[in-house]
């Protein structure tokens, strides 16, 4: 039954652009799906492996800028530049991991935060390549997307929406497969206790490196999509503010769950859009909301959902559900 929920959800979501929704609604949809992909990437590290890297938006930036630069300055097709950006983000993740995994715990988070800041600085200062403060302007939509959209009776915005949906579906599939494998179980072992995992025979270092590469590849995936969708890149979006925003999505949605990253991003992104008029006062709403969440749903929305479901038929099922989440 629950195996069908995801496919059903994606099919339903795919129908939306054919119902002539407003451009605003489609835009919100694309943004939620794009940021959710980034949250899924962070979830691989924080949710499954138990490590908090704080350079995530930096890898998003590497994916975005690689895509932007290759299409704008080297004349590459988006369909080649995008995978190149993903590969480069994964490679950068590997390089960071080789150094950062010599540290543990808080030191790891702080080290990666520093690297994140450096990535943003490099993007900001390397004028010749990245456009520096002015950013990159006029990144084109993917070749053929507009024509393909028209062919099925949609506008370009509808095409972008479907592209984002496919990207999200691919992401969920990838993360679900990784999680269900013995590779994924080894990540949970590392999360549960690095020393124990090591003693049990898990090669902790290589598993961490692979997890990091998957995590940053997903960040690059989201980044490339962002570049072509927004059409403009500035260095600010690659900075710690974005990392912490995505971290908030993830925490709200539920760490280490398959639904959490999407749920959290959908809720908080929509809320931010709704409360935009309040400007800085929106934090008067956000602050208490977070406090309530920590108090009543420490495992996020996804954890709340499993608990409610477990409570209905039999309380006994509860422990099993939570451990399986």
């Amino acid at each position, binding site marked *: 039954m629950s195996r069908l929920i995801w496919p059903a959800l994606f099919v339903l979501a795919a129908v939306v652009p054919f119902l002539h929704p407003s451009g605003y609604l489609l835009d919100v949809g694309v943004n939620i799906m794009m940021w959710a992909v980034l949250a899924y990437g962070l979830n691989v590290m924080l949710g499954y492996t138990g490590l908090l890297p704080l350079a995530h938006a930096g890898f998003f930036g590497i994916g975005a800028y690689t895509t932007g630069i290759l299409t704008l300055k080297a004349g590459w097709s988006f369909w080649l530049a995008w995978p190149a950006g993903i590969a480069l983000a994964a490679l950068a993740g590997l390089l960071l991991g080789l150094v950062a995994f010599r540290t543990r715990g808080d030191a790891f988070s702080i080290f990666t935060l520093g690297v994140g800041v450096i990535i943003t600085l490099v993007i900001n200062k390397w004028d010749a390549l990245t456009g520096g403060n002015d950013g990159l302007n006029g990144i084109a939509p993917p070749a053929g997307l507009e024509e393909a959209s028209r062919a099925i009776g949609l506008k370009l915005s509808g095409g972008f929406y479907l592209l984002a949906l496919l990207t999200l579906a691919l992401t969920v599939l990838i993360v679900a497969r990784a999680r269900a494998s013995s590779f994924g179980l080894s990540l949970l072992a590392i999360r549960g206790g690095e020393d124990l995992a*090591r003693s049990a025979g898990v090669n902790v270092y290589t598993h961490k490196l692979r997890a990091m590469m998957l995590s940053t590849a997903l960040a690059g995936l989201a980044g490339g999509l962002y570049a072509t969708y927004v059409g403009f890149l500035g260095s600010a979006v690659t900075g710690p503010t974005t990392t912490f925003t995505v971290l908030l999505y993830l925490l709200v949605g539920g760490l280490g769950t398959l639904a959490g990253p999407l749920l959290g991003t959908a809720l908080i992104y929509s809320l931010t859009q709704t409360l935009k008029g309040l400007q800085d006062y929106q934090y008067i709403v956000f602050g208490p909301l977070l406090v309530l969440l920590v108090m009543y749903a420490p495992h996020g929305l996804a954890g709340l959902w499993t608990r409610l479901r477990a409570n209905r038929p039999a309380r006994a099922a509860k422990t099993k559900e939570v451990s399986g989440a």
Partner: protein
Amino acid sequence: MLDVENLGIRFGGLHAVRDVTATVPAGQITAIIGPNGAGKSTFFNLISGFYRPTTGTVRFQGEDLTRRPTHEVVARGVARTFQTTTIYRELSVLENAMIGHRVRTRAGLLDALLRTPRERQDARGSRDGALRALERVGLVRQAHLPAGALTQEGQKRVGIAMALASEPKLLLLDEPAAGMNPEETVNLMALIRELVAGGLTVALVEHKMSLVMGLADHILVLHHGQLIAQGTPAQVSRDPAVIEAYLGSHAHGGQMGQGAQGGEAAHA
């Protein structure tokens, strides 16, 4: 089977293990005893590659394992359990054992993403290997329970199953009977005997002298990190240096004497 030579490690000024040369013979039960803080757990940590020795070598089946990372030592066939019950309490019993079996599977991230034949084969192998280990410790029926829901004794068995799932030739048990009542201890002894009868070599650290004297073929005595005696239970319990070490420290003297009698009776 396992030979250590001049093995030692220092923590700052403290020689936790010092110049230990000893052998763990294949197919037998070797007990490592000694007062608290004697360096027994540290000795295991050195063998399993968990700590890097400052001096000496560790050879297993003729191969030098000194300074190898732990997962390679496990891959060669040396598995261990911890003194305090250390398992994944929030994961299922089966998943705990599957983690122990990970060292026998090769499928990586790409295999998982592409669902390669190797991934499918490893997934099956991992389940089967884990179930075999659970069968050996009698936990098949609890396979799908969260490990944390088991009794203290059950959790100890999960720890042993996790080690067994790596298909070891040598099993290191650090105080396996700690916190067990007499009946559970007897069951544990039966389990260890069964494992050895099945061809496994066991080395264990234990405080319960009845268990040591009744079970061990061979005993190593550590004191202040040094090997002060080794031999059969009968030999060791008569050794003046051992008696001195135990009388010199608290409480264990009485247990030692009692256990020795029990041990000799069992051997007669």
